């Protein structure tokens, strides 16, 4: 079977019962938006009710595209305190 027959990929966003905004939870395949919503219920909420679902076909999402040269890395360099690994925490403390 050729790849062109493959169901399109959808990005799934969920807002939980008490959530303030939709969060990206993952992706899945579906033939259309209606089915993508149903599949999302089955795959990502295991039927949890009271959640709001958004589905967006992956190809319609535009993402920022970091340039592959210096400018991307430079700004980060003088703000290393923003990176979690800047703070050396002993392993015994556990997950943080």
């Amino acid at each position, binding site marked *: 079977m050729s790849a062109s027959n493959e169901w399109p990929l959808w990005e799934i966003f969920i807002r939980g019962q008490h959530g303030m905004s939709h969060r990206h939870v993952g992706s899945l395949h579906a033939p259309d938006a209606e089915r993508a919503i149903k599949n999302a*219920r089955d795959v990502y909420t295991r*039927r949890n009710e009271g959640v709001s679902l958004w589905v967006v076909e992956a190809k319609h999402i535009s993402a920022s595209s970091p340039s592959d040269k210096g400018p991307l890395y430079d700004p980060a360099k003088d703000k290393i305190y923003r990176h979690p690994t800047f703070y050396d925490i002993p392993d015994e403390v556990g997950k943080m």
Partner: protein
Amino acid sequence: MMTANEALFQFLLRQGDNALVLGHRTSQWCGVGPVLEEDIALANTALDLIGQTQLWLAYAAEVQGEGKSANDLAFLRDAYDFRNLLLLEVPNGNFGQAIMRQCLFDAFQVPWLTELQTSSNQQVADISAKSLKEALYHWERSSETVISLGDGTEESHAYMQAAVDFCWPYAGEMFCDDAVDEAINTAGIAPLPSSIRQTWIDQVESVLSEATLTKPNSDFAQRGGRDGIRHTEHLGHMLATMQVLQRSFPGATW
């Protein structure tokens, strides 16, 4: 003349065995579904049905009053004591046949459980209310799938037409009232199944028409499941598999 308790027990077995047998059949898709998303969705349906089985059979065991559990009823009865529809025990065949069966059954379950929510028997009403939520979702999904595949490609259309032709003779059993149904109806526990028939036909006709499928003409109904008089040969094989551990190691704890 059966006692009210006997009628209730039989009625509960019908509900529980439908869920148990269809849940078992549906669980057989796990790992071999046509696409991952469907595989996962079918497992959810099967899990819902197993959950419903536990509720109906636990209550059935209580009504029976012999100190048995839902598991005793599921794993230690023989085929002639099962009270499920024949439609649900026949093997899955292909995906089209399985989803058509699901759709025809859901089209019954939704109006049926809706009625049972107002049962004079509070436990029946409670179990039904919980099961209805699940049945509504099963129906949404199964009817939409039947429509997609009926209207899909020539090949999928052919599969679905064959599926409805295969399932149809088994569907009529849902509406064959008998003495148990009369007794249950008189007690205000449930309406007669035949009273659901028109709603069912309207729903099914609308789905089949949108799916560009032809409704079989025959009204002939294969019977013998819900009264246990004559199951198909398939149920015995299904139970031989399902009950093997309980039968091989009597009394063991698992």
